[in-house]
């Protein structure tokens, strides 16, 4: 079954349901791929930062709570 969109015309109140066009399907796929990559990059950056922080704390021999006291 093709993906559909529900359209509400706010002037008339009419609600219609249509199949997505080829362009809309392509844009939807592109958006999903772009977003997945951006999210993965962001998640990796956050994980890398957490790993570096844990390594530094271990090197200093202090806990995260103790490090917070230095801020």
């Amino acid at each position: 079954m093709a993906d559909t969109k529900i359209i509400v015309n706010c002037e008339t109140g009419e609600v219609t349901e249509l199949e997505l066009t080829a362009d809309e399907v392509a844009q939807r796929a592109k958006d999903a791929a772009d977003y997945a990559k951006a999210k993965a990059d962001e998640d990796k950056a956050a994980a890398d930062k957490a790993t570096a922080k844990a390594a530094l704390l271990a090197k200093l021999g202090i806990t995260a709570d103790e490090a917070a006291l230095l801020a």
Partner: protein
Amino acid sequence: MANTYVKIGSTVTVGLAGAATIDFTSIPATYTDLVVKLSTRDTAVTANTGAAKVTFNGTVTSYTNRYLTGSGSAAATGSAGTTFIDAGLGSLMPTTGNTASTFSNIEIYIPNYAGSTNKSLSVDAVGENNATAAYAGFNAGLLSNTAAVASISITSTTLFSQYSTATLYGILKN
């Protein structure tokens, strides 16, 4: 009660087959602000991965996201996405992988939508899940485009599940 919070058009309730996108078109410029209320669930398989991608006037560039979320045990920030505003806050809306029959509760507030400045919006959202991780958060979004908002599209990750609803309201500040 003052006539300041007016439903525009009709409430959408998604049917059995699901829906990829919900569009509100021909939005009149007669209000001060707009509010979209969503109660949505996505057919994606993995839990807490549903997005509600918001775009204005068919524009798919020049968006900025800044969101803050909490899972119940950890907090996170994010800014991913330039082709839409994610009202699902990093795709945390309930999905098929979440507890059955749970839905998000999302409000999207769009101030000065008919003005001639860039279009900002704020999102506050919670998911629902009878499990350890259940998400809540906020998103501050911007579309760097000055055109008045005449249409709003809200797109799912996979499909909005049956019984998902969307309602658009106009706010008048007298």
